[in-house]
């Protein structure tokens, strides 16, 4: 119908923009990582030196560990919650679905920076609402410093991340459940199947593709999130909430070590691209 020339003309504006501000910089970052830098000036070819440094960088390993914990926590909590809530909600009236779907989704519309500010205030050890509420119900012994405590900082932050994400999972799962053939559930009802049986043997298996998609989405976000940490703890206390992106940011903007920041970025890129390639081939194989 149309010629190749037309196709390229149509692609050109998008490709130019994407190329200039994403593809070229990514290529540069890869190149940067093979050089030694001093004050923003490349001083010589460094081979794999920047990558060798990774092995002995405790902050890098701590950050990577925190990202992995974040992936696992996200897969366990908001994804599961989203699936169960969607399965329950799907049997309710259209009005309930619309209202609760909207309510669950609202936190997703709030910028992560603002979510971080709001929750930072809820977690405040002195004025914060969480400790206030715990005292009020007689559980004052559980009150803590939350984000300021090494042991609870990462998990407290994850509750904020989950807050912004579970509603997204509900909405996506709901759309998928509504496309399941209702006669499957009707047949199960006739056989007298209980809710949890239908959930386990119809809903969960038929939503495997959606789960895979959300799992991929959640894992990528968990590897590359930045705003939430930066606006609350900046990686602290100590390195308790350091993640790869904050390590890159600090290495680049605060330390000014371009080569090492680039090497960290390349590792981060390699991780997210590997995860997506894996998930993509799984999705294809279905």
């Amino acid at each position: 119908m149309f010629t190749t020339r037309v196709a390229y003309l149509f692609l050109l504006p998008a490709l130019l923009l994407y190329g200039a501000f994403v593809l070229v910089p990514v290529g540069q970052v890869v190149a940067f990582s093979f050089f030694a830098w001093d004050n923003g000036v490349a001083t010589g070819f460094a081979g794999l030196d920047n990558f060798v440094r990774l092995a002995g960088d405790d902050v890098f390993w701590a950050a990577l560990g925190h990202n992995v914990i974040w992936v696992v926590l996200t897969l366990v909590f908001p994804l599961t919650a989203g699936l169960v809530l969607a399965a329950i909600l799907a049997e309710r009236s259209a009005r309930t679905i619309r209202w609760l779907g909207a309510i669950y989704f609202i936190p997703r519309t709030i910028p992560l920076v603002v979510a971080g500010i709001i929750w930072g205030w809820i977690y405040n050890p002195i004025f914060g609402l969480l400790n206030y509420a715990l005292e009020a119900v007689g559980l004052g012994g559980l009150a803590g410093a939350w984000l300021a405590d090494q042991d609870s900082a990462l998990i407290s932050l994850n509750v904020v991340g989950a807050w912004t994400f579970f509603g997204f999972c509900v909405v996506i799962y709901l759309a998928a459940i509504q496309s399941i053939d209702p006669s499957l559930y009707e047949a199960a009802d006739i056989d007298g199947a209980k809710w949890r049986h239908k959930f386990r043997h119809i809903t969960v298996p038929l939503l495997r593709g959606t789960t895979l998609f959300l799992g991929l989405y959640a894992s990528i976000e968990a590897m590359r999130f930045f705003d939430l940490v930066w606006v609350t703890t900046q990686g602290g206390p100590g390195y308790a909430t350091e993640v790869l992106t904050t390590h890159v940011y600090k290495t680049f903007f605060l330390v000014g070590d371009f080569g090492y920041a680039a090497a960290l970025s390349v590792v981060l890129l390699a991780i997210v691209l590997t995860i997506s390639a894996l998930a993509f081939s799984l999705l294809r194989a279905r």
Partner: protein
Amino acid sequence: MNRRPRIVQSAILAVFAVYALAPIYLVVLASMRSEADLFSGPLALPWPLDPTNFLRVWIEGGFSGFFVNSLIISSSVTVIILLTAPLAGFAFAKIRFAWREPLFALFLAGMVVPAPSVIVALYGNLQAFGLIDRQIGVILPQAAILMPFSVFMMRTVMQDIPDELIEASVMDGANPFLSFLAVAVPIARPGLMSLALIVFLFSWQEYLLPLVVLQTDALKPLTVGAANLQGRYGIDYGGIAAAGLIAFAPLVVLFLFMQRSFVRGLSAGAVK
């Protein structure tokens, strides 16, 4: 279904509704509480309702400016995306050409690229081109970062357009661009609406790019303004709450009014 599980299930639905709404409710309360009322506890209804917090951050805190900047940046990003992504999506969906699959894969890969990795090189490039501390230096990279998702979504939308309609318009002698405008765009309008909303939302939420690119306060968007406020007046909770509300209320309202469009866009590609 018998009654007991249904009650348990309703309780689960309710608990998560509280989880979703409680923080927002608290912010609304805190934003309207006067200083004199500060000690009646965070859950007490604020009375009398006090607009001072809003007036203070809006006028003295510079949030009227941040608000306008967010509007300028997000609208520009949305317009740029609407001018470029539908064309590219159309090409990927409806035209057969050499390199189609590899080029599409190149766009797909961009969907997962972490912004902080790009910034390590992007920052120097923006500096070299004199785009640091200018809003265009935020707008162009932001549109570029949102491009892969937008092109992917537009390809899905354009695939649903019947080939016969396009063929008919080509037979009538329309040039390719005209038949794109006259046939594809009207059919894709709901998809374009979803795309516009989502791009606007993502752009409004963006923090890292404006944080590193913009240094002059008069150019900064709401996300950066709110984060700075938190650092500067760490204990002005009324002000911070009001600032937070100004930063997210437009998005919540937009979402509630356009829920269907939003959901269609976000689930594009996820359900198939």
